[in-house]
């Protein structure tokens, strides 16, 4: 290792973040090179300064103010959102079944959960794509209702 690569690793060395060959080579170089030792001492001092600085203290009423302001916030509730989308899904499914029957009549078999149907999750909850009719375009049974 030359001086440049040693000096680039000095912080990691001081922080005990080096191991293996890298560490051995660093030690070997530092034991021989005064310039790099001086550089290491300089960084060690700075590290000591930063680590020893007094922590800035918050004002006395900060905790109470902070707690009140945080707890006042509305929480995003994933469960309620899920219930809403489940309701939407039920409605959409009923709707799309009607459409499916209207378009294809009774001539097609009605195995709705066959091995070829796959379920996608999207912004609106769940979309089912039925590609039993894969020689035509897939039927997307929850149409593009609502915002994207």
């Amino acid at each position, binding site marked *: 290792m030359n001086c440049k690569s040693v000096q680039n690793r000095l912080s990691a060395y001081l922080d005990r973040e080096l191991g293996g060959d890298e560490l051995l080579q660093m030690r070997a170089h530092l034991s021989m090179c005064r310039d790099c030792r001086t550089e290491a001492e300089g960084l060690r001092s700075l590290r000591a300064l930063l*680590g020893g600085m007094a922590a800035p203290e918050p004002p006395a009423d900060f905790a109470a103010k902070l707690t009140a302001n945080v707890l006042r916030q509305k929480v995003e509730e994933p469960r309620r959102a899920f219930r809403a989308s489940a309701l939407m899904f039920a409605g959409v499914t009923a709707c799309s079944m009607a459409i499916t029957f209207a378009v294809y009549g009774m001539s097609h078999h009605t195995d709705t959960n066959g091995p070829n149907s796959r379920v996608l999750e999207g912004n609106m909850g769940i979309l089912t794509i039925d590609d039993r009719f894969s020689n035509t375009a897939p039927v997307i049974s929850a149409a593009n209702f609502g915002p994207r």
Partner: protein
Amino acid sequence: MLFTAVKEKTGVVADRGRLFESLIQDSYKQAYGLAYRLTGNAAEAEDLVQESFVRAYRFFHRYDENLPFTSWLYRIMTNAHIDMVRRRGRLKTTSLENSGTDGSSTWDLPDADAAPDRMMLSNALDEPVQKALSSMTPEFRMAVLLADVEGLAYEEVADIMRTSVGTVRSRIHRGRKQIRTYLLKNAPQTYRSFCDEL
């Protein structure tokens, strides 16, 4: 431990308020210390801590259970801080031209014979260190603070900042060198006295 309590209660909205009271109680001082070093002043530190806890509270169901709570909070704080800096362009406290024409500065010791102890020197260097921090990019500032003030390992810093250990290593090293250069330029006597006291 509180961390276990956090894990058990993740996603349970009804308990969130009570849980957060204890989480705030447990970590607000540490969070404030970091926020103060990041922003350089009390008003913005308070805003940043509040913004971070509010985001954590609202999106607690997204809490990554592989992280300790403070690490997750610091991740949120990193993003909030970077947003803030990018929005404003620079930090309020950034004013690097504090050196007088003769090379002396506002913060340097007026009298080298005073021979104060290490603590006093460290206190005298607080403001120049803060100015040096403010002159850095938020990514460098955060990396140095998490490693040197919070005492975290590089891997933890990388987790919080969502980057590689190699990037963290380079940010910390270059960040420290920037601070040292700044101190040698703006508070040379005080800084050299501090180094000699070690």
